[in-house]
Structure formats: structure tokens, C-alpha cells
């Protein structure tokens, strides 16, 4: 078969991913670790199913990082980016400079020359965009303070790849390999390098300006034209074309493709085709990133590690410790609140996928010898592989200890609140409730682990708390003592039950209104005797059903009555089924089949009832009877 080798490789990578990722996900370890493990297992160290070509795969898969930054850009309004400038350049800049300086100093202690040490410091100072952002997205932490800060730092690091690439040949020259600059890979990396600095700068500005212009004013017309063809694959092709095109242009002018597509994403963030682009790019992004992590896992040179395990593990520990301490200190300086600073530091304590590029470039520039390069590659890969473990350590071991010690949540945002209403969970569901209450002049406190549009909401008088409602301190801090009402509008259904338990036990005076997923979930709330339960999609579905009746020829009021009848009947049905459920929760599962029979019975009865109701209630004949009886009386 044509390209059999390629398909075999694809088969192995995909199998590894399909097996490893669900397993680690089930264990609560996140997908990144799963991919890395899959890579290690199929790599030379264990099964040896993939070998030397893992490096090539990795370069290809790095495109996933480019796609990821594009998608992240799409979610970031330009105004928000502008607000983040202080953290991007302050926090990010200091992180790169200080970490690079310390690591260079350490490298010098190992008898490297100053130019080499500087290169090593700069290369290792960067952190892995791929791992960190994937983890943040997966855990929904991109919006929390640690996530935001981490993102800012990563953005600055992306920007700084460009000057570092430019600096490496200079450092190589300083270390005495002047003659090699001419034929180095430099010209491939950047064809503009030969031009003088300011011309290069002008070109960069012109390119970015034209991307902005095209994105702002022209892109939407092109998107519309393509979308109007109604052929989804052409839209997909165009989305990929867009990203690849920008990546090529960026490499040509000497900027990082990731940075370029990120900017393009930001420019398109206001575009009406944003979601379409996002959903189109997302599968490619996720697959390529997965591939990238697998290839990182496969590329770990275990032979080298086994040769001298203590030394290498020592290096990794030094690297992570230095980065961790610098990050922690900067987190404190930049006022990251307790708990978030540790998360922030653990998130960024590894080295970057850019290091792979930079190391091989340094090797080509003869700045680093083969042995050092191999060692550095191993250290970088190991540091990346350890990150998920560190994050688990932080989450499972450190955070509980820290919070217990402070006896105060690190999540809360503002002073203790005394609003009468607390809304737990502020997604699409909670938003409607919040708006309604606000429209009626009620002050509302919101608890959410991932609130969107924080600034806007706060301006309108909402009090916002970042945090996990299931934790007693968070509820306490949100002002439960002064609250009359807690609305559990969260989509984390099991957690909502836990919160209800906690509230019933400790704050029996507070009324609980709950959002239920389905009738079984509603029954769980009934059992906890909360004040009111609402099935989350029932009402909007009924409303749409009403519209359907109207379209089928019902008068509007007739349809309205029909839906009212249906809703009231549903309430009755729910009460009856609950009585059944309470008797024997287990038996009820078996009765689901009977339930569906009941359902059809109900529907039939409903139909009769409707006819009865509408015909009888405003019956023309009854008016006739009235006349008749009046006549009778007159007689």
C-alpha cells in the first residue's frame, strides 16, 4: 500500500493517544501527562515502536502551538490585551531576564564560558506554552489570576524568542566561531537578518499593520463569501490557509509564527465568524498538540539518563527550583494572592518547546557542542514531563495545607459581602437569573471558579468571588451569614448537591433554589428539601414547543394555554414519581422502562385533557345553554 510506513506510524501514535489519555483523564491527571506517557511508552526507551523520526514529528507538531495561540487570540479582545500590558512586559520581562541571569551564573559554575552560559540561561528561561496553556484550558483556569499572569509571561517569552534567535549567532561569534556565521542556518530562519535593523523594523511594522487592516476590514467579507458557498470543508481549508499563511509571513520577517497567529487571532476576536473559526481550528489544534506531547515523551533520551541518572536529575531539580523561586518571588512582587502565586510558579517552572528549536540552532551555530546539546535537550524534556506531576502535587497536597493554615480562602476577591442573594455558578444559566435580579434592584453576590466578563459585571454592581463553592470557606467569605437566598445555578451537578448538604446542615435559615439537570437530579434536591427546584431545559423547551404549536395553526393563546397545561401536569407527574422514587431508589432504575410507558400514557391523557379544557372552558354551546336557561326562567 502506498505510504504504508506513514500509516503505520500514524496508527501507533493514535493508538497510544487513544489508550493513554482516557486512562490518565480517568485518574484525574490531565491529558498532557497522558500524551507524554504514551510517547515514553512507544518511544525507544520502552517499546521502541517509534525512533529517530520522533524529532521530525515534533517539529511538525509544533504547528499545534501556533494553532493554539491563534485560538487563544480569538478569545482575547484587543482591549483586554491592552489592559494586560503591565503584566506582559513587567512580569514577563523580569521573569526572562532574572531567570536567564541566574541560570547563566549557574552554568558558569559548571565551567561554561560566559557566552555559552548566557545562551543556556536564555534558552532554559522560557516556559512551555503548549503544556501550560493546554493545562489551563483543560482546568478552566485561563481567567483566574494565576492563569492570566502565566499567560502574560508566556506571551512575553514568545516575543523574546525573536531577539534570542538573533543573539545566538552573536554569542557564537563572541565565543570564537566567527567564521561559521556565514553558512549557518541563520539565513533560513530569517531572510531579513541581512538587512539593517531599522529597515527590518519597518518591514515588521508594515506587515503587522497590514494584518490588522485585513483582519479588521476585509476578512469578514472573505469569510462571508466562503461561508455562503455552504461547503464547510472550504471554510476549514480557508481557516487553515489563514493560519499557515500568517505563520509563513511571520517566519519570513523573523517573528515567531506563534506570536504572529496570536496577533491575527486578537485582530479577529471581534469578528462575527470568530466561533466558526474557533470550532474549525480546534480539532486540528488539539490533535497536533497531542502529537507534540507524544513526540516530547518519545524523544526523552533515556539512555543518556541511565548513564548518569543522579547528575541529570540533579540538573533538572536545579532548573526547576531556580525557575520556581524566581516565579514565586515575582508573583509576590506583582501581588498575586496567596495560593495563586504557588500555582503560577508551578505552572511555569519547566522549559519550553522553543528550547528544542533554540538548542538545535545553537548547535548549528557551533555555540554548543553535541554533548551539551543532547544533555540540554534531555533536561528540557524531563522538566516538561515533570510539570503535570508538580501541578498535581500543588493541587492535591499543597493547596489543602495552605488553605488550612490560613483558615481563610485564597480565592475571595473582595471584602466580606452582605448581599441578600448568592448565586453559585455564573454561566449561561446564572447570568439570566443575575440579570433578572439586578433589573429588580437586588444586590447579588456571585461565586464562580471561572467568571467571564468580570469587569463589566462588577461595574453593574455584582460582587464576584473566584472560588470553588464546595469549599466551606468560600461560601463563608461570600457572606452566607447575611444571605437570605442561595441560588445553585452551577452546571457541576454533583457538587451542587454537596453544597446543598453543607448549607442545610450549617445554615438552615438560608433558602436554596436549585438548578436540576433532570428529574433524578431534581429528586435528589427534593430529598434535601430545598426551597425550589427547576429543571434546567424544561421551560425553554416548552416555550419553543409553544412556538411550534403556533406554527402548526394554534392561535397564540391556545398554544399558551396548551403549554401551561403541560407544565402544570408535569409538576403533578414529578410529585407522583418522586413518591415512587422515595420508596425505593434502586427499584426505580429498573422502572425506567415503565416510566417511558407512563410517559406515553400521560401524553395521551394530556391530549384528552387539552381538548376537554379548551373546548369546555369557553364553550360556545354553554353560552347557548345560558340563553336557554334564561329563556326557561322567563317562561
Amino acid at each position, binding site marked *: 500500500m502506498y505510504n504504508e510506513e506513514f500509516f503505520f506510524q500514524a496508527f501507533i501514535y493514535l493508538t497510544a493517544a487513544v489508550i493513554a489519555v482516557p486512562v490518565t483523564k480517568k485518574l484525574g491527571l490531565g491529558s498532557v501527562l497522558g500524551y507524554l506517557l504514551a510517547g515514553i511508552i512507544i518511544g525507544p526507551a520502552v517499546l521502541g515502536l517509534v525512533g529517530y523520526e520522533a524529532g521530525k514529528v515534533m517539529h511538525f507538531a509544533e504547528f499545534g502551538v501556533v494553532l493554539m495561540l491563534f485560538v487563544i487570540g480569538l478569545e482575547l479582545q484587543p482591549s483586554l490585551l491592552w489592559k494586560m500590558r503591565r503584566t506582559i512586559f513587567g512580569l514577563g520581562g523580569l521573569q526572562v531576564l532574572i531567570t536567564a541571569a541566574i541560570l547563566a551564573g549557574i552554568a558558569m559554575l559548571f565551567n561554561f564560558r560566559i557566552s555559552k552560559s548566557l545562551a543556556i540561561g536564555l534558552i532554559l528561561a522560557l516556559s512551555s506554552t503548549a503544556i501550560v496553556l493546554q493545562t489551563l484550558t483543560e482546568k478552566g483556569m485561563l481567567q483566574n489570576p494565576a492563569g492570566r499572569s502565566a499567560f502574560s509571561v508566556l506571551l512575553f517569552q514568545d516575543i523574546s524568542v525573536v531577539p534570542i534567535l538573533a543573539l545566538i549567532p552573536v554569542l557564537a561569534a563572541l565565543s570564537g566561531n566567527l567564521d561559521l556565521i556565514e553558512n549557518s542556518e541563520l539565513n533560513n530562519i530569517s531572510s531579513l537578518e541581512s538587512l539593517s535593523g531599522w529597515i527590518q523594523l519597518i518591514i515588521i511594522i508594515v506587515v503587522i499593520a497590514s494584518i490588522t487592516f485585513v483582519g479588521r476590514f476585509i476578512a469578514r467579507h472573505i469569510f462571508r463569501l466562503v461561508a455562503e458557498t455552504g461547503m464547510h470543508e472550504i471554510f476549514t481549508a480557508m481557516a487553515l490557509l489563514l493560519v499557515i499563511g500568517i505563520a509563513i509571513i511571520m517566519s519570513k520577517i523573523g517573528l515567531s509564527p506563534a506570536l504572529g497567529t496570536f496577533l491575527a487571532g486578537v485582530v479577529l476576536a471581534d469578528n462575527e465568524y470568530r466561533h466558526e473559526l474557533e470550532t474549525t481550528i480546534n480539532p486540528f489544534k488539539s490533535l497536533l498538540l497531542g502529537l507534540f506531547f507524544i513526540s516530547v515523551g518519545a524523544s526523552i533520551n533515556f539512555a543518556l539518563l541511565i548513564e548518569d541518572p543522579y547528575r541529570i536529575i540533579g540538573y533538572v531539580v536545579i532548573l526547576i527550583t531556580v525557575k520556581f523561586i524566581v516565579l514565586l518571588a515575582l508573583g509576590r512582587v506583582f501581588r498575586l494572592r496567596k495560593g495563586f502565586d504557588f500555582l503560577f510558579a508551578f505552572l511555569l517552572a519547566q522549559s519550553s518547546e522553543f528550547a528544542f528549536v533554540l538548542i538545535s540552532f545553537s548547535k548549528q551555530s557551533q555555540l554548543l557542542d553535541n554533548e551539551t546539546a543532547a544533555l540540554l535537550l534531555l533536561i528540557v524534556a524531563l522538566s516538561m514531563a515533570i510539570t503535570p506531576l508538580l501541578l498535581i502535587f500543588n493541587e492535591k497536597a499543597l493547596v489543602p495545607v495552605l488553605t488550612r493554615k490560613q483558615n481563610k480562602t485564597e480565592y475571595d476577591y473582595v471584602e466580606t459581602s452582605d448581599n441578600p442573594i448568592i448565586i453559585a455558578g455564573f454561566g449561561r444559566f446564572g447570568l439570566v437569573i443575575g440579570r433578572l435580579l439586578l433589573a429588580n434592584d437586588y444586590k447579588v453576590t456571585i461565586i464562580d471558579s471561572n467568571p467571564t466578563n468580570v469587569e463589566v459585571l462588577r461595574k453593574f454592581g455584582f460582587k464576584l468571588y473566584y472560588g470553588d463553592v464546595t469549599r466551606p470557606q468560600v461560601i463563608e467569605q461570600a457572606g452566607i451569614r447575611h444571605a437570605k437566598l442561595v441560588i445553585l445555578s452551577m452546571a457541576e451537578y454533583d457538587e451542587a448537591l454537596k453544597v446543598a448538604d453543607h448549607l442545610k446542615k450549617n445554615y438552615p435559615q438560608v433558602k436554596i433554589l436549585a438548578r436540576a439537570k433532570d428529574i433524578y437530579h431534581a429528586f435528589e434536591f427534593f430529598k434535601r428539601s430545598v426551597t425550589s427546584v427547576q429543571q434546567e431545559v424544561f421551560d425553554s423547551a416548552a416555550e419553543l414547543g409553544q412556538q411550534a404549536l403556533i406554527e402548526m395553526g394554534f392561535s397564540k393563546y391556545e398554544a399558551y*394555554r396548551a403549554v401551561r397545561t403541560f407544565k402544570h401536569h408535569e409538576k403533578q407527574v414529578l410529585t407522583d414519581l418522586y413518591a415512587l422514587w422515595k420508596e425505593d431508589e434502586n427499584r426505580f432504575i429498573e422502572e425506567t422502562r415503565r416510566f417511558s410507558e407512563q410517559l406515553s400514557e400521560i401524553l395521551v391523557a394530556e391530549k384528552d385533557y387539552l381538548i376537554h379544557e379548551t373546548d369546555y*372552558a369557553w364553550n360556545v*354551546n*354553554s353560552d347557548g*345553554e*345560558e340563553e336557554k*336557561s*334564561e329563556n326557561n326562567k322567563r317562561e
Partner: protein
Amino acid sequence: MKKILIIFAHPALQKSKIHKRLTDSVKNIRGVTLNNLYENYPDFYLNIIKEQQLLIEHDIIIWQHPFYWYSAPAILKEWFDLVLQNGFAYGEKGKNLEGKQVLSVISTGGSKEIYCKGGRNNFTVNEFLIPYKQSANLCLMEYLPPFVIYNAQTLTSYDIDHHVSKYKQLLISLRDEKIDKKNIRSVEHLNELME
């Protein structure tokens, strides 16, 4: 002892001066059932079966409401339209309400003086209530003179106390059948019997 059902309709009780006090003071009297229509059916979706059952279980029916456009708030009309069905309340087979007593308890913004021939409203309150009276007749019920509170918007707290205690007294007298039938027919408003 007779059982009394108050069918109460007020769409904005939070703005009411008199009806809140009236209902609060009588709802716990033994033998009295308060059926707050706007509270029980905010969506106007009346439970017809339940409403009819309530009527059957009581001997004296009261329609209590503010006087809006010389009539009742909308939900009470809905109640008439849906609950007093042919075959239940009237018609060949509809004798369920036969012999029950029924009266209107209403509040008006205007004074007694403007509710008369030549006054601003041209007709008396009792004349405006003719549809209720005839509805009662059709259902074979005895329609008593109404209990009317005039000047409802300008009542002093003393006036309110006065009306509340009269209302209470009226309900207890009706319940215990302490009112002389002859007296009832001789008055325009039942208020007059409670001096």
C-alpha cells in the same frame, strides 16, 4: 356553623392599604377559607376542578376585590368564565351552588356621594354590581347586599381599624347565622348592620 369561602382578587397587594388588613384579619377565623386568586394562579391558569370543589365545600361565597372600572380585577372574570361552568353552576344538571349565599366585598376610590344618579359616576355601586347579582341568580344562589368601603385611598389608620373590625364581625355573624333575614333585605350595604 356555616363555612365561608373568600374568593379574593387583588393584583398588587403590596400597594393595597385596606385589602391586606382585611384578609389578614379574617383568614384565621374558624370556618373561613381564603382563596387568593392572584397568589394561587399567577399565570391565570386556574385549577377548575379544585375551584369547583372549594365551592361545593362552602356555604357562603364572598367575592372580595377592589372596584376596577366598576367591576373586578381580570382574574375574577377568568374565574367566572372557567369555574362557573354549565352543568356545574347552572343549566339542567348544574345545581351544585343552589341555596348558597354570596356577596361582594369591595373597595372603591370614590366616595358614596359620587356613586349616585347625577353624581360623577351616575350609578350606585349596587347598580354596577347587577351582573354579579344576576350571575348569582342564574346559579340559584342568594345574592346578599355588598359590603362596601368607600374612599379607599384616603383612609386613616383609624378608619381602617374600624372597617376591619366590622368585616370581622360580619363574617362571624354570617358564619353563626346571627343576622336576621329581614334586616338583610332592608339595607343597601351590609356595613349598615354592623354599627
